[in-house]
C-alpha cells in the first residue's frame, strides 16, 4: 500500500454512514474547533472543567495546544519539549498541567501563565536518546497524587531493555522510582480505586499485568486472548471487568480491532468483540454504563453495557482520519476527539496532484443521556 492509501481508505470510510448506526445516536457533533498549523498526531488530552480549557498534546510537533472551550478557540501553545509530549493531566487544586516528555522527563506547567514550573527526570534521563526509554501513556491517582507513566522500550536500538512504569509524586514534585515490567510497551494503564491494583496492557506481548502499586510489584500476568496488540484499558469496578482495546495488526489502520472483556479477578477472557481499528483510547462511564471506544479508523464506537458479560453497540460516531485520541468529560457530558491535519487525495494516487489539506481540529460532541 502506498503512503496515501490509508488516508484514501479512511476518506471512503468517513463518507459511509455507520453501517451499524442505530438511532438515536449516542452523541452528536456540536462544535468544531480548528487548530491551524498543528501538524502530526495528537495524543492524550486533559480538561480543566472550571476554566473550560482543553489541553491537547501535539505529540509530533512537540507542543501542547491550549483550547478555550467557551469561545472554541486555541488561546495558547506550550512549547519547550525535548521529546514528544503524550499524556496530559490537569490538576485543579494547583492549576497545573502535567505531561510526560519523550526526553524521559515529566513536566509541569502553570495553568495561569503556562510557564514551566517543574521538570522531573525519569529513569534513564541521563542516557543518550538511543538508549533511554520513552514515556507514553499514563494514569493519575488523584487520592495519592501520583502520576504513573508507561515507559516504552520498543523504539530502542539497543536490545534487552524492558519497559517500566515510572512514578511521579505530583504533590511534592518528585520522582519516586519505577516498576520494571516484562515486555517493551506498557501501552495502557488503569487503576483499581478500591485496591492497590493497577492494570497495565502490554502492546507487544499481549499480556495484562496486575501490579500492586503500593509494593511496586507485578502480581500476575494474564494473556489477552483474542486481542493481540492491546493499547488501551478501562476498568469497571462494579462488575469486576477490564475492557481492553486491542489492535489486531501493527499500525493504526487495520480493521477490525477488538474490545476484549476480561474478568479483573481471574484474568478470564469473556469476550472479544469486533470494533474499530487502531484503538488508542477506551473509556468506561459507570453512571451510564457506556464504553467509548476510539479507533484510529475514523469512528468512535459506543457500547452499552447490559451486564458485565454483555455489550451492545449503540452505534458508530464519525470522527475523522487518524483521530486516535479522545476525552470523555462526564461532568460536562461532552466528548472531545482530536483529528490531526490530513491530506485528501482522489485515486489514482499519487498521480493526482489535487490534494486537499484539512486542518487539525477538535470535534466537540454532546453525549446523549
Amino acid at each position: 500500500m502506498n503512503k496515501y492509501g490509508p488516508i484514501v481508505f479512511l476518506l471512503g470510510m468517513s463518507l459511509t454512514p455507520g453501517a451499524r448506526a442505530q438511532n438515536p445516536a449516542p452523541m452528536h457533533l456540536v462544535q468544531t474547533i480548528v487548530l491551524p498549523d498543528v501538524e502530526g498526531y495528537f495524543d492524550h488530552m486533559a480538561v480543566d472543567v472550571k476554566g473550560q480549557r482543553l489541553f491537547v498534546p501535539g505529540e509530533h510537533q512537540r507542543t501542547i495546544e491550549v483550547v478555550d472551550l467557551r469561545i472554541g478557540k486555541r488561546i495558547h501553545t506550550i512549547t519547550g519539549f525535548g521529546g514528544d509530549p503524550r499524556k496530559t493531566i490537569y490538576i485543579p487544586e494547583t492549576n497545573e498541567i502535567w505531561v510526560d516528555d519523550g526526553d524521559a522527563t515529566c513536566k509541569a506547567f502553570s495553568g495561569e501563565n503556562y510557564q514551566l514550573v517543574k521538570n522531573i527526570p525519569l529513569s534513564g534521563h541521563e542516557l543518550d536518546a538511543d538508549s533511554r526509554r520513552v514515556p507514553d501513556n499514563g494514569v493519575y491517582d488523584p487520592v495519592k497524587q501520583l502520576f504513573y507513566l508507561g515507559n516504552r522500550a520498543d523504539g530502542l536500538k539497543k536490545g534487552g531493555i524492558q519497559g517500566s512504569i515510572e512514578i511521579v509524586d505530583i504533590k511534592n514534585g518528585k520522582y519516586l522510582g519505577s516498576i520494571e515490567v516484562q515486555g517493551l510497551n506498557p501501552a495502557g494503564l488503569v487503576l483499581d480505586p478500591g485496591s492497590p491494583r493497577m492494570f497495565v496492557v502490554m502492546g507487544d506481548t499481549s499480556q495484562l499485568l496486575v501490579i500492586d502499586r503500593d509494593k511496586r510489584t507485578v502480581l500476575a500476568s494474564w494473556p489477552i486472548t483474542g486481542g493481540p496488540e492491546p493499547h488501551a484499558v478501562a476498568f469497571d469496578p462494579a462488575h469486576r471487568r477490564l475492557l481492553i482495546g486491542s489492535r489486531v495488526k501493527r499500525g493504526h489502520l487495520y480493521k477490525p480491532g477488538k474490545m476484549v472483556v476480561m474478568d479483573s479477578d481471574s484474568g478470564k477472557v469473556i469476550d472479544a468483540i469486533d470494533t474499530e481499528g487502531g484503538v488508542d483510547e477506551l473509556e468506561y462511564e459507570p453512571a451510564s454504563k457506556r464504553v467509548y471506544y476510539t479507533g484510529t479508523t475514523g469512528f468512535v464506537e459506543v457500547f452499552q453495557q447490559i451486564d458485565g458479560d454483555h455489550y451492545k453497540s449503540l452505534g458508530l460516531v464519525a470522527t475523522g482520519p487518524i483521530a486516535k485520541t479522545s476525552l470523555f468529560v462526564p461532568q460536562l457530558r461532552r466528548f472531545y476527539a482530536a483529528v490531526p491535519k490530513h491530506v485528501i487525495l482522489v485515486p489514482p494516487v499519487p498521480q493526482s496532484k489535487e490534494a486537499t489539506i484539512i486542518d487539525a481540529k477538535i470535534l466537540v460532541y454532546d453525549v446523549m443521556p
Partner: protein
Amino acid sequence: MRGQIAFSVIWLVSLVISAASLYAQATGPLRLVQTIPMPGVKGRLDHMDVDVEGKRLFVAAVENGSMEVVDLEGGRWTRSIAGFKTPTEMCYVRELNKVFVASRDDGMVRIFRGDTLDLVDSLKLEVGANRITYDPPSKYLYVGYGGKLAGFDYGRVGLIDARSNKLLGDVVVEAHPSQILLDNPAHRIFVAVWELGKIDVFDVRDRRLVLTWTTGGQSGDMALDQTHRRLFVATRNAPQLMIVYDADSGQEIARLPAEGRMNGVYYDGWHKRIYVTCGRELPASFVFVYQQNDPDHYEFITKIATGSGAGTSFWVPQLNHFYVGVPGVEKQQAAILVFEPQP
C-alpha cells in the same frame, strides 16, 4: 403675518406638549387597572408566563411550592397546583399544548398538558433549575440550571426538545445562569450570569461563546429591543442601574438609576418604554419606567409603588398589560397587579 403664524404654531405645539405631559403626570405611564388577589398563596412569587389565547397567567409561587393560575379575562385566581419544590418559572407552549415548570431545589422540569394542566412528564436536570425560554422555530427550550447550588464550578443552559421532553445537550456557562433571551435571527442567546455580573452571548448552533462583557453589578434580568438591537440589563445590587447596551457589540449606550433587588426587565416596543420591577424581599417595591427617546437616548420617567417584596413581573404586548406579582407576606395578600401602559 408669516411670523405670527409661525409663533402661533410654536405656541400651539408647546401647549399640546404641556397638556400631554400634564396628562402623563396625572395618569402616569402605567395605570393600575386591576388587582387580582390570590388569598392563601404564601411567600415570594417568581416568574410568570401567559396563555394569550386562553387568557391565563401562570405564576410560580416559589415559596408556596405551587403554580398559580389566573384567569385574566375574568380577573380571577382560578387554580393552585401544588407539589413543587421552589418552582421558579413556567413556560407555556401553545403549539405543543404544554406547560413546562422548572423547580430550583429538586432540579426538575415538570411538564403539564396545556389545557387541563395534568402532569404528563418530568425531566430531571440538576439543582438550580431556573429560567425557561422557548424557541418556536427549533422547538427547543433553553433552561438555566447547575452552578454552586448544584455543587459545580459552572452552570448550564440545557437544550430540551420540547416535543420529546428530552435533554439534548448543554451550553456550559461560567456560573449559574439567570435569564436567557433568544436572539433568533442571529442564532444567539443572551445569558445573564448574575454571580459574575456578566452577559454571555452564545451562538446556539455550535454552543460557542461569541461575546461577553461585565456589567459592574449582579446582572440578573434583561430585555431585548430586537428592532434597535438594544439590550437592557438591570443590576440587582449596587450600583443599582438599568444599563442599555448595543446588543451586537456589548458597548454601553446609557445607564440610568434603578433600585435594589430588581427581578424583572421588559421592553415595551409599542410605547418605547422599559419596565424594571425592583424590591424583591424589600419593604417597598416599585416599577421603574424609562422612556426610549431614540435608540441611544433614554430617560427615567417615574417609579410606581407596587407593594412589599414584589420583584417579578411580566409584560404581554399582545394584551397590552404589564403584570406584577405581589407576594403574600405578613398582612399583605398575594396578588397580581395588572397595569396598562398609558400613551
